[in-house]
């Protein structure tokens, strides 16, 4: 029976039957073939580790034997003072860090982009490169350089302030609990302001020239032109910048690790979820590594970012209009 069908399918007398069956089957195959490479790589690098992290957070190692404890790790993280004190502090620092970026980095990025897109500005390419350069530097270089600049012992900052008679204004900002996190946030803003600047600059360049000329003829110039014409057209890009900032901040680790070390000193004043996770998972100095509690923190970070991104996608982006230019 199979053979007969096969013969029939191959027979040139039945082109109609082949047309119906052939493409449908072929279509399914090529979809799978084209999706496979990306899916395999993504699964191996993202989905498997993520799933395993979620799984780890539900277990605890008792006498070197993994035991399922349900959500008990989360209860410990939120309520056991040995963990919760650090966790809530790190979370608070993370929100402070994020607020600093959203309120400073994005507005400065927008302002720089608006200035760069002024048609009469000279040396545009120079400024563009100069503002973007820190973004291209390694965080190790940035962190270490700023650590040196701000060092009270051999840093250039006290000398420079002294040169303009403000030596008294200098404080070891990175070494004081009250200012360390703010200083780090400023360094981070300095480094990454190039990203919102470039994205928004590109969005502004995409605004048709005639539209701006129409605004000029309508008497809408200068800041009013920015507020009434350009800003509404770049809102979607600002939204993207904000969500990138959000994800970047709650995943932040590198700069703080470079400048303040894994202990996020002074006295955990710069501790954020990233450094807290690092210490917990891998261990640090006298602290032993605890993969299960580490996974629990990582899961919390994942959930926070997921909540933020979802809120953006479903709450903000759905309501934001993109205009065909």
């Amino acid at each position, binding site marked *: 029976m199979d053979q007969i069908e096969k013969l029939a399918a191959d027979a040139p007398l039945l082109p109609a039957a082949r047309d119906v069956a052939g493409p449908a089957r072929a279509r399914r195959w090529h979809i799978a073939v084209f999706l496979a490479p990306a899916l395999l790589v993504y699964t191996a690098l993202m989905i498997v580790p993520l799933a395993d992290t979620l799984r780890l957070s539900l277990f605890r190692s008792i006498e070197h034997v993994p035991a399922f404890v349900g959500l008990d790790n989360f209860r410990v993280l939120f309520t056991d003072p040995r963990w919760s004190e650090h966790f809530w502090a790190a979370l608070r620092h993370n929100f402070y860090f994020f607020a600093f970026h959203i309120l400073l980095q994005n507005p400065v990025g927008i302002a720089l982009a608006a200035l760069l897109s002024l048609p009469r500005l000279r040396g545009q390419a120079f400024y563009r490169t100069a503002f973007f350069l820190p973004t291209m530097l390694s965080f190790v270089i940035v962190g270490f350089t700023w650590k040196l600049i701000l060092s009270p012992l051999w840093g250039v900052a006290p000398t420079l302030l002294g040169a303009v008679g403000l030596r008294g204004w200098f404080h070891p900002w990175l070494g004081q609990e009250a200012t360390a996190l703010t200083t780090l946030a400023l360094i981070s803003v300095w480094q990454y302001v190039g990203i919102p600047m470039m994205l928004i600059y590109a969005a502004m360049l995409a605004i048709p020239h005639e539209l701006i000329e129409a605004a000029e003829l309508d*008497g809408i110039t200068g800041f009013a032109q920015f507020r009434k014409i350009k800003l509404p057209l770049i809102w979607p890009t600002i939204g993207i910048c904000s969500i990138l900032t959000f994800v970047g901040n709650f995943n932040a680790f590198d700069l703080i690790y470079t400048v303040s070390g894994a202990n996020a000193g002074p006295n955990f004043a710069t501790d954020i979820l990233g450094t807290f996770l690092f210490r917990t998972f891998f261990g640090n100095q006298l602290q032993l590594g605890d993969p299960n509690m580490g996974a629990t923190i990582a899961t919390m970070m994942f959930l926070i970012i997921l909540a933020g991104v979802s809120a953006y996608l479903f709450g903000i982006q759905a309501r934001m*209009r993109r205009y065909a230019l």
Partner: protein
Amino acid sequence: MGSLSLSAISKSFGVVDVLKGVDLDVAAGEFVVFVGPSGCGKSTLLRVIAGLDEQTSGDLRIDGLLMNSVPPAKRGIAMVFQSYALYPHLTVARNMGLALSQEGIAAADIKRRVETASALLRLDALLDRRPAELSGGQRQRVAIGRAIVRQPSLFLFDEPLSNLDAALRAGTRIEIAKLHRQLGATMVYVTHDQVEAMTLADKIVVLRGGIVEQVGRPLELYARPANLFVAGFIGSPTMNFIGGDSAARLRAATIGVRPEHLLVAPESAGAGAWIGAVSHAERLGADTMLYVDVPEVDVLGAGMLTARILGDIDYAVGDRVGLTPQAGKVYRFDDDGNSIAA
């Protein structure tokens, strides 16, 4: 209101001279069309009048007031762009009213003026829509409405119909002509389409290479072109230019005959001034275009004479025909290409 005076306007972009001393006077209420081939400077001239580009030298006066270096919004002008340039994030009503609210005009006044303009342009039903929800023709009308509400003394149009399809173009052309009659404002209109120029203009300015070649009423340019360029540019199909002996007999370097002024007869019917074989025929129903090879005649350019015959006349390719210019319809040009007075 709305007279315009240009004296010795020139404009250079770096080493490129786009306008080379343009003088022009436009009376209040006139409809002036700038026409010319691509790169002739017509759009640049319009932008200089608008204040979007600053002239390199020369004086620009609107209503007798010197407007050099005056910002665009303070010149009492409004402009309609080729791409419409509507604000994509604003409704039709806000698009039209934005300039007024920027000037600080009361909301009630803005509303009244927007309503007047939208009634004139049949935009009433569309006031709450955004540009993306409008068709090309509707966007064009909004762009015109945005200009009208400002009550300018001078309207500037930069190829406003070139993004519309042919049917819509004819309709909008008529609307613009009506609008000019209703508003009585001065209008300056840039186009490369000579039909628009001929039908809309009180006065046509033909530009080439940044120089004004001729200024005049449409039929004046048709009947009395100042030189070869204007003669060839105005009229469609293009005028036939003939040199050599045929021209020398009339004491001219070149003579020109418009296709519609060539009488065509079969060779058998007797002599024509020029005799040749039909190489191509275009039958449009209302009229017929014949392209005739005339080897003995020194035809400039295409090497074929074009004749336009009213009605549908069935000549086949290869038919031999005689062509005779109508009496008094031959244009004569001297060595420099300038017209020789009849």
